[in-house]
């Protein structure tokens, strides 16, 4: 059940089980996310793993290893960890009281970055990476809420990549976007995997097929099958996976 062992290891889960109250959201999942690839996690609605939820409410068994260090170990600071992992959520969440510039700079400022010139550079680089620079470069200091939904989501990607994390987690990033916005985000996944290790959670199988190098199919919190995306979608090994991707259930 290992996607590939020949690329440099970054992120891995080992027998991970996560409980949210009584609900067992993740059951004994062992997955490997190779560096500089896009790994898609697919599955029917409500069954997707939320292993990225680093919330205190979850009780976790097993390990999530980042460079062989268990992120749930007592001596790992959650704040420090979150700076290494950038996250983008289902709905765009720009900070409503901040300008476009301040939104992107937020993660840098909290890390102690205060020098104007360095901030300017980092903000423009992040916006360029998120393919938003050309649209907002003339109005960096206007409210982030004046942007369209798709632009806001790209702003959130810019905000997530500005502190230069190692891993980028996208939790159904196109769930609230129109097809054009969706396409832009998917193009970004291709462009950004050069810089980051990307994990994308999606309900949309076509999206997984389009953007990812590896695909993990989850059902009711359990890992059913994982492999190269083109193999999962053309010749899945498990009957259940085939049933799902051909639309017979889910």
């Amino acid at each position, binding site marked *: 059940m290992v996607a590939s062992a020949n690329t440099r290891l970054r992120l891995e889960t080992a027998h991970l089980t996560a409980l949210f109250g009584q609900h067992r959201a993740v059951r004994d999942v062992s997955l490997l996310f190779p560096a500089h690839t896009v790994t898609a996690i697919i599955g029917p609605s409500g069954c997707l793993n939320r292993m990225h939820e680093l919330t205190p409410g979850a009780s976790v068994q097993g390990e999530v290893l980042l460079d062989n260090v268990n992120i749930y170990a007592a001596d790992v600071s959650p*704040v*420090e960890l*979150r*700076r290494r*992992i*950038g*996250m983008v*959520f289902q*709905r765009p*969440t720009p*900070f*409503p*009281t901040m300008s476009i510039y301040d939104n992107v700079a*937020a*993660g840098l400022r*909290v*890390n102690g970055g205060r020098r104007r010139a360095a901030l300017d550079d980092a903000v423009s680089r992040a916006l360029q990476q998120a393919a938003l620079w050309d649209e907002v470069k003339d109005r960096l200091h206007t*409210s982030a*809420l004046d942007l369209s939904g798709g632009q806001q989501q790209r702003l*959130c990607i810019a*905000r*997530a990549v500005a*502190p230069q994390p190692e891993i980028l987690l996208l939790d159904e990033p196109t769930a609230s976007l129109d097809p054009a916005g969706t396409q832009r985000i998917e193009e970004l996944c291709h462009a950004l995997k050069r810089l980051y290790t990307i994990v994308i959670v999606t309900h949309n199988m076509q999206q997984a097929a389009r953007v990812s190098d590896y695909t993990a199919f989850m059902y009711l919190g359990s890992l059913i099958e994982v492999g190269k995306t083109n193999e999962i979608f053309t010749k899945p090994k498990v009957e259940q996976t085939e049933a799902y991707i051909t639309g017979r259930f889910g």
Partner: protein
Amino acid sequence: MSGASLRRHLTSRVMTVLIVVLSFTAVLALVLILGNLLVKGASSLDWAFFTKSPVPAGQSGGGVANAIAGTILIVGLAALIGVPVGVGAGMYLAEYGAGRLGFAVRFVADVLNGTPSIVIGIVGWTFIVKPSGGYSALAGSIALAILMIPMLARTTEEMVRLVPHSLREAALALGYPRWRTSLKVVARTALGGIVTGCLVGIARVAGETAPLLFTALGNLNFTTSVTQPMQTLSLQIYVYATGPFDEWHRLAWASALVLMGLVLVISLTARWVTRARYGRIR
């Protein structure tokens, strides 16, 4: 038109009319009060009213400058004490108040919110006026602050709770520590609502009389010393309205008009702050 459709139509009409009538009844109270105050009080508003202190009973003329200054001082001082405590408590309740302490604070705030204001006055007399050896404006401010704190705590809590959870998650995901998330993202997003809540709370206590009767007492002379008894508009109205002289009644009406105007200005500012906030956010 079929029977069912006709009935729906009629019900809709009747309800609409009913709602309009009820709305007007609610507004009518305010219009009557304001109108009455204007009719009976406006004629007494002159330069002397705002600049002179009261003259001895029986004489005509004089003003309520002492009471206007006193109101602004006592209410301002009350806000200075009450706003940080109330807003801080509200932030705590909304962001960290899930546990037993939060429950206790919330419960106490609700009980305090329902406490008659005259009881707060007596508390102020027992715990501040008596030990300190005399009535003072400061005691009045503290009594008003006690009245204000639970209101501000609960409205702040409501406003902070309105901030979507996704914003907190987004800030935490960027590596914000919890306290910084509360301060930089949550409080800033809720700021318009919090300021509005504060202004409404201030407007509410500006008209209070009962807590001041036992604490600030009242004073016929102009003073700005907070350790001395001090007059406020509400106390002035209380004394003048219950007194025997026509001249006093005239001044009471005018004072009531000024107090009402003051509260109205604060309320309008609150509306304007809210408008400015939602105007920007759309």
